[in-house]
Protein backbone atom coordinates (compact mmCIF):
# COMPACT_ATOMS: atom_id res chain seq x y z
CA UNK A 1 0.00 0.00 0.00
CA UNK A 2 1.29 3.43 -0.86
CA UNK A 3 1.03 5.52 2.26
CA UNK A 4 0.38 9.21 2.18
CA UNK A 5 3.86 9.84 3.50
CA UNK A 6 5.50 8.09 0.57
CA UNK A 7 3.36 10.02 -1.84
CA UNK A 8 4.17 13.32 -0.19
CA UNK A 9 7.89 13.13 -0.83
CA UNK A 10 7.10 13.54 -4.50
CA UNK A 11 6.05 17.16 -4.18
CA UNK A 12 8.04 20.31 -3.73
CA UNK A 13 5.85 23.36 -3.55
CA UNK A 14 7.08 26.62 -4.91
CA UNK A 15 6.04 29.80 -6.57
CA UNK A 16 6.96 31.92 -9.55
CA UNK A 17 6.26 35.66 -9.34
CA UNK A 18 6.32 37.71 -12.51
CA UNK A 19 7.14 41.18 -11.25
CA UNK A 20 6.46 42.59 -14.71
CA UNK A 21 2.77 41.76 -14.36
CA UNK A 22 2.31 43.10 -10.85
CA UNK A 23 0.14 46.20 -10.70
CA UNK A 24 0.39 46.60 -6.93
CA UNK A 25 -3.33 46.22 -6.33
CA UNK A 26 -2.85 44.47 -2.95
CA UNK A 27 -5.53 41.89 -3.71
CA UNK A 28 -3.09 39.16 -2.66
CA UNK A 29 -2.53 40.90 0.65
CA UNK A 30 -6.23 41.13 1.38
CA UNK A 31 -6.83 37.53 0.30
CA UNK A 32 -4.02 36.33 2.53
CA UNK A 33 -5.22 38.31 5.54
CA UNK A 34 -8.69 36.87 5.29
CA UNK A 35 -7.70 33.31 4.41
CA UNK A 36 -5.16 32.93 7.19
CA UNK A 37 -6.94 34.65 10.08
CA UNK A 38 -4.41 37.43 10.27
CA UNK A 39 -5.47 40.14 12.72
CA UNK A 40 -6.34 43.56 11.38
CA UNK A 41 -3.29 45.81 11.40
CA UNK A 42 -4.01 49.25 12.74
CA UNK A 43 -2.05 52.45 12.38
CA UNK A 44 -0.45 51.97 15.75
CA UNK A 45 0.91 48.58 14.66
CA UNK A 46 2.53 50.13 11.60
CA UNK A 47 3.98 52.98 13.64
CA UNK A 48 5.62 50.44 15.89
CA UNK A 49 6.84 48.45 12.84
CA UNK A 50 4.91 45.49 14.07
CA UNK A 51 2.17 44.76 11.54
CA UNK A 52 1.52 41.16 10.50
CA UNK A 53 1.46 40.69 6.74
CA UNK A 54 2.33 37.25 5.46
CA UNK A 55 2.53 38.73 1.99
CA UNK A 56 3.29 42.36 1.34
CA UNK A 57 3.69 44.41 -1.82
CA UNK A 58 6.80 46.52 -1.61
CA UNK A 59 6.67 49.70 -3.65
CA UNK A 60 9.62 51.48 -5.20
CA UNK A 61 9.63 54.76 -7.05
CA UNK A 62 11.96 55.34 -9.93
CA UNK A 63 12.86 58.60 -11.61
CA UNK A 64 12.16 62.27 -10.87
CA UNK A 65 8.72 63.82 -10.63
CA UNK A 66 7.23 64.19 -14.10
CA UNK A 67 8.80 60.96 -15.22
CA UNK A 68 8.07 58.66 -12.28
CA UNK A 69 7.63 54.93 -12.45
CA UNK A 70 6.24 52.79 -9.67
CA UNK A 71 7.64 49.31 -9.28
CA UNK A 72 5.96 46.66 -7.19
CA UNK A 73 7.25 43.43 -5.79
CA UNK A 74 5.17 41.01 -3.70
CA UNK A 75 7.19 39.39 -0.94
CA UNK A 76 6.20 36.43 1.19
CA UNK A 77 8.10 33.64 2.93
CA UNK A 78 10.53 32.27 0.36
CA UNK A 79 10.41 28.75 1.84
CA UNK A 80 14.18 28.53 1.51
CA UNK A 81 15.72 25.10 1.13
CA UNK A 82 18.58 26.33 3.26
CA UNK A 83 16.51 28.46 5.60
CA UNK A 84 18.40 30.68 8.04
CA UNK A 85 15.41 30.71 10.39
CA UNK A 86 15.46 26.98 11.03
CA UNK A 87 18.77 26.24 12.79
CA UNK A 88 18.32 29.08 15.28
CA UNK A 89 15.05 27.82 16.74
CA UNK A 90 15.82 26.33 20.14
CA UNK A 91 12.62 24.28 20.27
CA UNK A 92 12.46 23.01 16.67
CA UNK A 93 9.24 24.90 16.06
CA UNK A 94 10.28 25.73 12.53
CA UNK A 95 11.62 23.04 10.26
CA UNK A 96 11.50 21.76 6.70
CA UNK A 97 8.96 19.14 5.86
CA UNK A 98 9.12 16.55 3.11
CA UNK A 99 7.18 18.79 0.71
CA UNK A 100 9.80 21.50 0.72
CA UNK A 101 7.76 23.76 2.95
CA UNK A 102 9.27 25.78 5.70
CA UNK A 103 6.84 25.01 8.47
CA UNK A 104 6.00 26.89 11.64
CA UNK A 105 4.52 24.76 14.41
CA UNK A 106 2.54 27.17 16.55
CA UNK A 107 2.10 24.95 19.56
CA UNK A 108 5.85 24.38 19.80
CA UNK A 109 6.86 28.00 19.44
CA UNK A 110 7.96 29.72 22.63
CA UNK A 111 8.46 33.13 21.06
CA UNK A 112 12.21 33.68 21.22
CA UNK A 113 12.03 35.61 17.89
CA UNK A 114 15.46 34.31 16.87
CA UNK A 115 14.01 33.14 13.56
CA UNK A 116 12.66 36.58 12.70
CA UNK A 117 16.04 38.10 13.49
CA UNK A 118 17.75 35.63 11.23
CA UNK A 119 15.37 35.95 8.29
CA UNK A 120 16.85 38.15 5.56
CA UNK A 121 13.45 38.69 3.91
CA UNK A 122 11.58 40.03 6.97
CA UNK A 123 8.67 37.72 6.44
CA UNK A 124 8.31 36.28 9.92
CA UNK A 125 5.93 38.05 12.24
CA UNK A 126 5.61 37.98 15.96
CA UNK A 127 2.29 38.30 17.72
CA UNK A 128 2.99 41.17 20.05
CA UNK A 129 -0.68 41.38 20.97
CA UNK A 130 -3.53 39.03 21.43
CA UNK A 131 -5.11 38.94 17.95
CA UNK A 132 -8.33 40.89 17.62
CA UNK A 133 -10.89 41.52 14.95
CA UNK A 134 -13.76 43.97 14.77
CA UNK A 135 -17.04 42.41 15.80
CA UNK A 136 -18.26 42.31 12.20
CA UNK A 137 -15.33 40.13 11.12
CA UNK A 138 -15.54 37.54 13.90
CA UNK A 139 -17.62 35.15 11.84
CA UNK A 140 -15.37 35.28 8.81
CA UNK A 141 -12.46 33.50 10.51
CA UNK A 142 -11.26 30.48 8.58
CA UNK A 143 -11.93 27.36 10.66
CA UNK A 144 -9.14 25.48 8.88
CA UNK A 145 -6.46 27.81 10.17
CA UNK A 146 -5.35 28.14 13.78
CA UNK A 147 -5.78 31.55 15.35
CA UNK A 148 -2.34 32.34 16.70
CA UNK A 149 -2.26 33.68 20.20
CA UNK A 150 0.02 36.32 21.61
CA UNK A 151 3.69 35.45 21.94
CA UNK A 152 4.27 33.18 18.97
CA UNK A 153 5.79 33.57 15.56
CA UNK A 154 3.87 33.16 12.34
CA UNK A 155 4.49 33.39 8.63
CA UNK A 156 3.29 32.34 5.20
CA UNK A 157 2.50 28.63 5.03
CA UNK A 158 1.80 28.46 1.28
CA UNK A 159 -1.79 27.91 2.44
CA UNK A 160 -1.00 24.45 3.72
CA UNK A 161 -4.61 24.02 4.80
CA UNK A 162 -5.61 24.12 1.13
CA UNK A 163 -2.87 21.66 0.17
CA UNK A 164 -3.97 19.26 2.91
CA UNK A 165 -7.62 19.60 1.96
CA UNK A 166 -6.97 18.99 -1.72
CA UNK A 167 -4.84 15.98 -0.88
CA UNK A 168 -7.58 14.55 1.27
CA UNK A 169 -10.30 15.24 -1.26
CA UNK A 170 -8.28 13.74 -4.07
CA UNK A 171 -7.83 10.64 -1.93
CA UNK A 172 -11.54 10.53 -1.24
CA UNK A 173 -12.74 11.06 -4.79
CA UNK A 174 -9.81 9.35 -6.48
CA UNK A 175 -8.84 12.41 -8.50
CA UNK A 176 -5.26 13.30 -9.14
CA UNK A 177 -3.85 16.55 -7.82
CA UNK A 178 -4.19 18.89 -10.74
CA UNK A 179 -1.73 21.66 -11.32
CA UNK A 180 -3.36 25.06 -11.35
CA UNK A 181 -6.51 23.69 -9.78
CA UNK A 182 -8.29 26.49 -7.96
CA UNK A 183 -8.50 24.45 -4.78
CA UNK A 184 -4.79 23.66 -4.94
CA UNK A 185 -3.72 27.27 -5.14
CA UNK A 186 -2.82 29.62 -2.38
CA UNK A 187 -5.23 32.42 -1.55
CA UNK A 188 -2.96 35.08 -3.02
CA UNK A 189 -2.66 33.22 -6.32
CA UNK A 190 -6.41 32.87 -6.61
CA UNK A 191 -6.89 36.55 -5.88
CA UNK A 192 -4.28 37.87 -8.29
CA UNK A 193 -6.04 39.58 -11.22
CA UNK A 194 -3.00 39.71 -13.49
CA UNK A 195 -1.67 36.17 -13.06
CA UNK A 196 1.49 37.51 -11.45
CA UNK A 197 1.71 34.70 -8.94
CA UNK A 198 1.93 31.08 -10.04
CA UNK A 199 1.92 28.29 -7.47
CA UNK A 200 2.77 24.68 -8.09
CA UNK A 201 4.91 21.61 -7.69
CA UNK A 202 8.53 21.98 -8.82
CA UNK A 203 8.98 18.22 -8.81
CA UNK A 204 6.32 17.77 -11.45
CA UNK A 205 7.92 18.63 -14.82
CA UNK A 206 4.49 19.30 -16.33
CA UNK A 207 3.51 21.98 -13.83
CA UNK A 208 3.44 25.63 -14.79
CA UNK A 209 6.06 26.59 -12.24
CA UNK A 210 8.47 23.94 -13.53
CA UNK A 211 8.00 25.11 -17.10
CA UNK A 212 8.50 28.73 -16.08
CA UNK A 213 11.61 27.83 -14.13
CA UNK A 214 12.99 25.89 -17.06
CA UNK A 215 12.28 28.74 -19.42
CA UNK A 216 13.41 31.63 -17.24
CA UNK A 217 16.11 30.21 -14.97
CA UNK A 218 17.98 27.70 -17.11
CA UNK A 219 18.04 29.81 -20.22
CA UNK A 220 20.80 32.39 -20.19
CA UNK A 221 18.47 35.17 -21.30
CA UNK A 222 15.71 34.29 -18.89
CA UNK A 223 14.26 36.85 -16.51
CA UNK A 224 14.30 34.59 -13.48
CA UNK A 225 16.18 35.37 -10.31
CA UNK A 226 15.95 34.47 -6.67
CA UNK A 227 15.73 37.15 -4.09
CA UNK A 228 19.00 37.75 -2.20
CA UNK A 229 20.40 34.71 -3.96
CA UNK A 230 23.92 35.57 -2.87
CA UNK A 231 23.03 34.67 0.72
CA UNK A 232 22.77 31.03 -0.32
CA UNK A 233 19.33 30.45 1.15
CA UNK A 234 18.11 28.81 -2.09
CA UNK A 235 14.50 30.03 -1.97
CA UNK A 236 11.60 28.16 -3.50
CA UNK A 237 10.14 31.39 -4.83
CA UNK A 238 11.40 32.55 -8.19
CA UNK A 239 10.99 36.16 -9.31
CA UNK A 240 10.85 37.15 -12.96
CA UNK A 241 12.32 40.61 -13.33
CA UNK A 242 10.55 43.47 -15.00
CA UNK A 243 10.86 43.69 -18.74
CA UNK A 244 12.89 46.79 -19.45
CA UNK A 245 12.49 47.95 -23.01
CA UNK A 246 15.40 50.33 -22.79
CA UNK A 247 17.79 47.79 -21.29
CA UNK A 248 20.60 46.67 -23.47
CA UNK A 249 20.83 43.09 -24.64
CA UNK A 250 24.24 42.70 -23.09
CA UNK A 251 23.15 43.42 -19.52
CA UNK A 252 23.84 40.79 -16.92
CA UNK A 253 21.17 38.24 -15.95
Amino acid at each position, binding site marked *: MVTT*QEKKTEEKWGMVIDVDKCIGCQACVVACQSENNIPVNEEEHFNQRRPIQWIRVERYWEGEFPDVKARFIPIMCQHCDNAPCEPVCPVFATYH*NSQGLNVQV*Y*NRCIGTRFCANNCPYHVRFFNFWEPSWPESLKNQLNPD*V*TVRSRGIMEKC*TFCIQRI*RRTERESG*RDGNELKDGDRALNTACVNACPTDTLVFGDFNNPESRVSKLRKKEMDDHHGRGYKMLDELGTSPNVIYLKKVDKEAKESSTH
Partner: protein
Amino acid sequence: MLPGDFQEPRITQRKVLLLGVIGLGGVSGLVVALALGLFVLSAWLGLPLDVFGFNEGPDQPIEFPHTVHVQELGLDCTFCHRTVTKDAAASIPAVGLCMTCHKTVGDGNPEVDKLRGYYESDRPIDWVRVHRVPDHVHFVHEAHIRFFSDKMGGDSETCSICHGDVGGMEKVNQVRSLKMSDCVDCHRNNDAPTDCTTCHY
Protein backbone atom coordinates in the same frame (compact mmCIF):
# COMPACT_ATOMS: atom_id res chain seq x y z
CA MET B 1 23.73 26.45 87.20
CA LEU B 2 26.18 28.18 84.90
CA PRO B 3 25.08 30.10 81.85
CA GLY B 4 25.41 27.97 78.75
CA ASP B 5 24.61 24.78 80.52
CA PHE B 6 22.24 22.63 78.61
CA GLN B 7 19.29 21.32 80.42
CA GLU B 8 17.41 18.46 78.86
CA PRO B 9 13.75 19.35 78.37
CA ARG B 10 11.45 17.31 80.43
CA ILE B 11 9.34 14.98 78.45
CA THR B 12 5.92 14.61 79.85
CA GLN B 13 3.31 12.14 78.72
CA ARG B 14 1.24 15.00 77.36
CA LYS B 15 4.04 16.12 75.11
CA VAL B 16 4.54 12.61 73.76
CA LEU B 17 0.88 12.39 72.92
CA LEU B 18 0.94 15.79 71.20
CA LEU B 19 4.00 14.87 69.12
CA GLY B 20 2.33 11.62 68.12
CA VAL B 21 -0.81 13.40 66.95
CA ILE B 22 1.18 15.98 64.98
CA GLY B 23 3.26 13.24 63.38
CA LEU B 24 0.26 11.18 62.38
CA GLY B 25 -1.45 14.28 60.99
CA GLY B 26 1.62 15.10 58.94
CA VAL B 27 1.88 11.60 57.49
CA SER B 28 -1.78 11.38 56.62
CA GLY B 29 -1.67 14.89 55.15
CA LEU B 30 1.23 13.80 52.97
CA VAL B 31 -0.68 10.73 51.84
CA VAL B 32 -3.74 12.82 50.94
CA ALA B 33 -1.62 15.35 49.05
CA LEU B 34 0.12 12.54 47.15
CA ALA B 35 -3.20 10.93 46.22
CA LEU B 36 -4.57 14.27 45.05
CA GLY B 37 -1.42 14.91 43.04
CA LEU B 38 -1.63 11.50 41.40
CA PHE B 39 -5.27 12.10 40.55
CA VAL B 40 -4.54 15.45 38.95
CA LEU B 41 -1.59 13.93 37.09
CA SER B 42 -3.69 11.08 35.75
CA ALA B 43 -6.32 13.56 34.60
CA TRP B 44 -3.65 15.69 32.99
CA LEU B 45 -2.02 12.79 31.17
CA GLY B 46 -5.25 11.34 29.92
CA LEU B 47 -8.53 10.71 31.58
CA PRO B 48 -9.47 11.15 35.22
CA LEU B 49 -9.59 7.96 37.27
CA ASP B 50 -12.82 6.04 37.31
CA VAL B 51 -13.80 7.04 40.86
CA PHE B 52 -16.75 9.07 42.15
CA GLY B 53 -17.99 9.42 38.59
CA PHE B 54 -15.08 11.61 37.55
CA ASN B 55 -14.84 10.06 34.10
CA GLU B 56 -18.54 10.46 33.49
CA GLY B 57 -19.65 12.59 30.59
CA PRO B 58 -21.24 15.97 31.10
CA ASP B 59 -24.96 16.45 31.69
CA GLN B 60 -26.68 17.21 28.41
CA PRO B 61 -29.69 19.52 28.01
CA ILE B 62 -31.67 16.49 26.86
CA GLU B 63 -30.85 13.07 28.24
CA PHE B 64 -30.42 11.53 24.84
CA PRO B 65 -29.97 7.78 25.17
CA HIS B 66 -27.66 6.40 22.49
CA THR B 67 -28.54 2.94 23.80
CA VAL B 68 -32.14 3.19 22.61
CA HIS B 69 -31.29 4.57 19.21
CA VAL B 70 -28.27 2.40 18.44
CA GLN B 71 -28.85 -0.86 20.28
CA GLU B 72 -32.62 -1.16 20.18
CA LEU B 73 -33.43 0.63 16.93
CA GLY B 74 -30.17 -0.24 15.20
CA LEU B 75 -29.54 3.17 13.69
CA ASP B 76 -26.16 3.63 12.10
CA CYS B 77 -23.88 6.41 13.41
CA THR B 78 -24.04 8.09 10.02
CA PHE B 79 -27.82 8.28 10.14
CA CYS B 80 -27.53 11.26 12.46
CA HIS B 81 -23.89 12.28 12.18
CA ARG B 82 -24.26 12.73 8.47
CA THR B 83 -21.13 14.54 7.35
CA VAL B 84 -18.76 12.25 9.22
CA THR B 85 -17.85 10.28 6.11
CA LYS B 86 -17.59 13.36 3.92
CA ASP B 87 -16.09 16.14 5.92
CA ALA B 88 -13.85 17.15 8.77
CA ALA B 89 -16.59 17.51 11.36
CA ALA B 90 -18.97 14.72 12.34
CA SER B 91 -21.84 17.19 12.78
CA ILE B 92 -24.66 17.11 15.28
CA PRO B 93 -28.05 16.58 13.62
CA ALA B 94 -30.48 19.44 13.37
CA VAL B 95 -33.56 19.31 15.57
CA GLY B 96 -35.59 18.74 12.41
CA LEU B 97 -33.92 15.38 11.86
CA CYS B 98 -34.95 14.21 15.33
CA MET B 99 -38.46 15.42 14.63
CA THR B 100 -38.87 13.21 11.56
CA CYS B 101 -39.56 10.42 14.05
CA HIS B 102 -40.38 12.26 17.24
CA LYS B 103 -43.34 14.09 15.77
CA THR B 104 -45.19 10.84 16.40
CA VAL B 105 -42.85 8.69 18.46
CA GLY B 106 -42.26 9.05 22.19
CA ASP B 107 -45.44 10.68 23.49
CA GLY B 108 -45.36 11.18 27.24
CA ASN B 109 -41.59 10.98 27.52
CA PRO B 110 -40.43 14.16 29.29
CA GLU B 111 -37.17 14.25 27.31
CA VAL B 112 -39.05 14.03 24.02
CA ASP B 113 -41.29 16.85 25.25
CA LYS B 114 -38.16 18.94 25.80
CA LEU B 115 -37.09 18.16 22.23
CA ARG B 116 -40.48 19.22 20.89
CA GLY B 117 -40.18 22.39 22.93
CA TYR B 118 -36.91 23.19 21.16
CA TYR B 119 -38.52 22.42 17.80
CA GLU B 120 -41.59 24.55 18.38
CA SER B 121 -39.63 27.54 19.67
CA ASP B 122 -37.19 27.16 16.76
CA ARG B 123 -34.09 26.93 18.93
CA PRO B 124 -31.09 24.67 18.50
CA ILE B 125 -30.16 22.35 21.34
CA ASP B 126 -27.06 23.47 23.23
CA TRP B 127 -25.39 20.09 23.45
CA VAL B 128 -22.33 20.02 25.68
CA ARG B 129 -19.29 19.01 23.69
CA VAL B 130 -17.63 15.82 24.94
CA HIS B 131 -14.74 15.24 22.55
CA ARG B 132 -12.62 18.27 21.98
CA VAL B 133 -9.13 18.73 20.63
CA PRO B 134 -7.30 22.04 21.00
CA ASP B 135 -7.71 24.76 18.38
CA HIS B 136 -4.27 24.17 16.89
CA VAL B 137 -5.17 20.58 16.02
CA HIS B 138 -7.04 19.89 12.81
CA PHE B 139 -8.71 16.52 13.04
CA VAL B 140 -10.53 15.29 9.96
CA HIS B 141 -13.13 12.59 10.52
CA GLU B 142 -13.48 11.74 6.86
CA ALA B 143 -9.86 10.68 6.33
CA HIS B 144 -9.81 8.51 9.45
CA ILE B 145 -13.11 6.82 8.66
CA ARG B 146 -11.97 6.14 5.12
CA PHE B 147 -8.71 4.57 6.31
CA PHE B 148 -10.25 2.38 9.00
CA SER B 149 -13.24 1.38 6.87
CA ASP B 150 -10.83 0.14 4.21
CA LYS B 151 -8.86 -1.65 6.87
CA MET B 152 -11.65 -3.20 8.92
CA GLY B 153 -14.94 -2.76 7.10
CA GLY B 154 -18.06 -1.50 8.84
CA ASP B 155 -18.68 2.07 9.86
CA SER B 156 -19.81 1.74 13.46
CA GLU B 157 -16.79 -0.35 14.41
CA THR B 158 -14.62 2.32 12.85
CA CYS B 159 -16.10 4.99 15.11
CA SER B 160 -15.62 2.91 18.24
CA ILE B 161 -11.85 2.86 17.78
CA CYS B 162 -11.72 6.35 19.24
CA HIS B 163 -15.19 6.90 20.69
CA GLY B 164 -15.65 3.55 22.42
CA ASP B 165 -18.98 1.81 22.47
CA VAL B 166 -21.15 4.91 22.30
CA GLY B 167 -24.15 2.73 21.47
CA GLY B 168 -23.91 1.22 24.95
CA MET B 169 -23.53 4.50 26.82
CA GLU B 170 -26.45 6.12 28.62
CA LYS B 171 -24.34 9.25 28.90
CA VAL B 172 -21.60 9.78 26.38
CA ASN B 173 -18.13 10.07 27.86
CA GLN B 174 -14.65 10.16 26.46
CA VAL B 175 -12.83 6.83 26.50
CA ARG B 176 -9.50 7.77 24.97
CA SER B 177 -7.24 10.53 26.20
CA LEU B 178 -7.00 12.14 22.72
CA LYS B 179 -3.69 13.67 23.75
CA MET B 180 -0.99 14.09 21.13
CA SER B 181 0.80 10.93 22.27
CA ASP B 182 -2.39 8.99 21.68
CA CYS B 183 -2.71 10.37 18.14
CA VAL B 184 0.96 9.91 17.29
CA ASP B 185 1.05 6.33 18.59
CA CYS B 186 -1.86 5.42 16.37
CA HIS B 187 -0.36 7.23 13.38
CA ARG B 188 2.92 5.33 13.84
CA ASN B 189 1.18 1.99 14.18
CA ASN B 190 -0.79 2.57 11.00
CA ASP B 191 1.98 4.04 8.85
CA ALA B 192 0.18 7.37 8.75
CA PRO B 193 2.20 10.55 8.30
CA THR B 194 3.66 12.00 11.48
CA ASP B 195 4.78 15.30 10.01
CA CYS B 196 3.72 18.16 12.31
CA THR B 197 1.74 19.77 9.52
CA THR B 198 -0.46 16.72 9.19
CA CYS B 199 -2.50 18.14 12.06
CA HIS B 200 -0.95 21.46 13.09
CA TYR B 201 -1.36 24.35 10.69
